[in-house]
C-alpha cells in the first residue's frame, strides 16, 4: 500500500503572510467536505512540475472541525530548495489544482497532559496552529513560545496574539530576544508536556534544555519536517526485479523509484512514520541514516533503510524490492 488515496483540490486563496511565507487555502475540486482532523496533523501535497513529481508534507493550520477548506503555509527556501516550496510560491496561484493526501498526525498533543508548552521556531509554528485551536476548544492549559527572526519574517504573530492573548509569547531575534526556555520549563507543574517544532539546532537545544532541567523524555515531543539531505549520485539495485536505478544527488531513493514507476511504500516522507522501511540485501560502504524511526541497533545492523530520507555516499545498494 503506497501512500493513501489522493484527493484533488483547488487553490481558493493565496496570501503572503510574511517575507518568504505564503498561506494557501485549498478546497475540494467538487466542493465536497474535507475530512476533519486532529491538532498537529499534516497532509502531503503532490505537485506536478513538468515531468517531475514532488510530494511535500505541510501542517494543516485551520480549525480541525472546518471541513470547507484546508490551510497550509509554505516557506520559500529559494534556490536551496529541492523544488517543492519554490514551485508552490512561483507556479501555484488561485485556481491551480493540486492533489493532497488525507490528514496524518505524527505530532499529536498528549491527551493525558495537565499543561502543554509549545515551542516554535520560524515556520515551525505551523503544526501548532491547529493544535492551539484544538487545545483552546477543549479548554486545555497551554502556552506558546514562538521565536522569529523579525516581525516581517514571522508569520501570524499578530493574529496569534490577538486570538490567544497572553498565552502567546513572541520573541524577535533582531531585537535580541530569545526564548527564555530555562525559566519557562523551570517553573511548570508536574504533568506538563513540551512540544517543539523548528530547525534542527533549535529542536536539539530545546530537548537538551528540558533534559538538563530534569524533564523525563516521556514529556517532550518534537517534529521536524526535514527534506532528504542531498548527496552524491549512487545506484539502487532491486533484488526481486533485477532493475538498476540511479539516484541523483538531489533526489531520495523513494523519489528515484517513483520516477521509474516502481511502487514503493511510503507515507510521511520525512523519516518519521516507518512506512517505507525497506530491507537491505547488500550495500557498498555504510548507510547515511537520516530518519527518526529506526532504532540504533537497527541502524548499526545495516539491514534496514528508510528510503524516503536515507542514502549512501556512493557506489550501490541492493534493496529487497
Amino acid at each position, binding site marked *: 500500500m503506497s501512500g493513501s*488515496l489522493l484527493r484533488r483540490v483547488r487553490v481558493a486563496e493565496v496570501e503572503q503572510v510574511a517575507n518568504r511565507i505564503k498561506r494557501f487555502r485549498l478546497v475540494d475540486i467538487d466542493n465536497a467536505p474535507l475530512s476533519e*482532523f*486532529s491538532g498537529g496533523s499534516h497532509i502531503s501535497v503532490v505537485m506536478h512540475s513538468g515531468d517531475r513529481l514532488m510530494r511535500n508534507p505541510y501542517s494543516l493550520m485551520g480549525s480541525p472541525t472546518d471541513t470547507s477548506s484546508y490551510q497550509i503555509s509554505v516557506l520559500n527556501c529559494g534556490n536551496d530548495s529541492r523544488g517543492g516550496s519554490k514551485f508552490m510560491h512561483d507556479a501555484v496561484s488561485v485556481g491551480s489544482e493540486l492533489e493532497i493526501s*488525507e*490528514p*496524518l498526525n505524527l505530532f499529536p498533543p498528549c*491527551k493525558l497532559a495537565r499543561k502543554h508548552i509549545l515551542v516554535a521556531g520560524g515556520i515551525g509554528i505551523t503544526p501548532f496552529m491547529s493544535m492551539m485551536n484544538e487545545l483552546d476548544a477543549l479548554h486545555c492549559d497551554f502556552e506558546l513560545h514562538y521565536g522569529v527572526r523579525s516581525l516581517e519574517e514571522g508569520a501570524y504573530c499578530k493574529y496569534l496574539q490577538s486570538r490567544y492573548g497572553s498565552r502567546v509569547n513572541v520573541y524577535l531575534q533582531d531585537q535580541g530576544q530569545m526564548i527564555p526556555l530555562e525559566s519557562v520549563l523551570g517553573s511548570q507543574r508536574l504533568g506538563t508536556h513540551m512540544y517543539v517544532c523548528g530547525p534542527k539546532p533549535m529542536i536539539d537545544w530545546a530537548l537538551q534544555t528540558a533534559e538538563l532541567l530534569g524533564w523525563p523524555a516521556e514529556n517532550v515531543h518534537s517534529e521536524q519536517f526535514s527534506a532528504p539531505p542531498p548527496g552524491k549520485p549512487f545506484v539502487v539495485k532491486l533484488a526481486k526485479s533485477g532493475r538498476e536505478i540511479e539516484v541523483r544527488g538531489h533526489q531520495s531513493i523513494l523519489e528515484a523509484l517513483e520516477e521509474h514507476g516502481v511502487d514503493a511504500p511510503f507515507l510521511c516522507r520525512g523519516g518519521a512514520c516507518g512506512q517505507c522501511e525497506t530491507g537491505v540485501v547488500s550495500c557498498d560502504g555504510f548507510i547515511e541514516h537520516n530518519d527518526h524511526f529506526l532504532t540504533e541497533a537497527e541502524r548499526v545492523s545495516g539491514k534496514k533503510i528508510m528510503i524516503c530520507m536515507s542514502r549512501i555516499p556512493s557506489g550501490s545498494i541492493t534493496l529487497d524490492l
Partner: protein
Amino acid sequence: MALTFKDETFRDDFTFSNSPAAIRRFPFPFVEDKYMYSVNIEPHTTGPEGSVFEFPFDIDEHYVSEMRDRAMVLQEDPARCQALPHMMMAQWDMLELVMMSMARDYPDLFTLTRDGSKWHWVNRPLKIEQTFTFGDASTLPYEPMEYIGRQVQGDFSIQDQRDNQLWMDAGIITSQADWSLDFDVGMNFFEWHGPVPLAHEAGVFERALKFLLNLQISNPVRRLNWTMTINPRLDTSPENYHKWGKDRTTVTPENVGQKVHLRVEMQGLFRLPRSNAILFSIRGYLLSLDQLVTVPKWGRRLHRVLKTLPEELIGYKGLSRYRDTTIEWLSKYDDGAPTSRGGGPD
C-alpha cells in the same frame, strides 16, 4: 434486502439460530485446508451486496435480540462499558461514524438529521428517537460510546494514540471471547495482546502496531478472527467464566452439531478524525456446526483445519475438552474431496 428481526435468546434456553440466508453470508474465515496464522488485514471497503462486508457496520437478523442481550449484560455489570476521561472526543467521533454509516446504509431502519450541532436520531427497530446536541454528553441518556454502542451490533474498543503506541482507553464489550475490558482498559497494544500465544515471538504484533499507527482517515481496514463457543452464548466473558465454563464439558458425540458453534469476529479498524484515536469494531457471528455442514465445503475444511491447529492455540482458544469429539463428528462430513480456495461456499 429487507430484514426480519428474529426474537431469540443467547442464554438459558438458547433459541438463537441462523436463517438459510444468514448461513450463506456467514464469514467463514478459513481460506485453505490447514491452519495458518496470518494477520490477513485488508481494506474495509464495500463488499458484495448482501455480504457481511457490504457496509462498515453490518446489521443482520439478530440485531434486535443481540441488543437486548447487551442491555442485560450491562444491567448486571456496568463495568463492561468504560471510557477513561480523556476519551470523550473519541467517543463523539465514534458516535458520528456509526450513526452516519447506519443512516446511510440502512435508510429504512435509521435516520439521522443534522442541523449544526442539533442532531436528531431515529432507530426504528429499537423504537428509539433522540434529539441531542453533538458534543454535549448531558443531552444523551448515556455517554456517546455507550449510547450508540447499545444500538449497533458488535463490541467496540477505542484506542488513543500516544508515544507511538495505541492505548485501549475506552470500550463497550459484552460478547467477548474471554477477555476482560475492565482489566485491560488502559493497556497498550502489546499488553492487551499479552496472553495471545505464538504471535509475539513471530513479530506479528510489532508489524501490526506499525501498520495501525499509520492508519489513515477514510481508509479503514478489517480482518477475521475466530474461536469456538459452546452454545450460542454471547457473554463468554472471564467475569462469568465460573458460570459458563462447565458448558465445555457438556459436548458429546450426539450433541456436537447443536452445541459447538464456530464464532467468527470481523474486526474493523477505523481512524477517528478529530481525536486521532482508532475505533476497533469486533463484529461477532455464530454458526452451529449442524448449520455449518449444510455448506459441504465448510464441513470438509473445518475438519482439516482443526486437525492442524497448534497445541498452544487449542489451549488459548479453550478447545481442549471438546476438540477431539468435534473432529470425530466433523470427519463424517469430510469425504476427502478437494476444496476450492477462499472462504466462500462453492
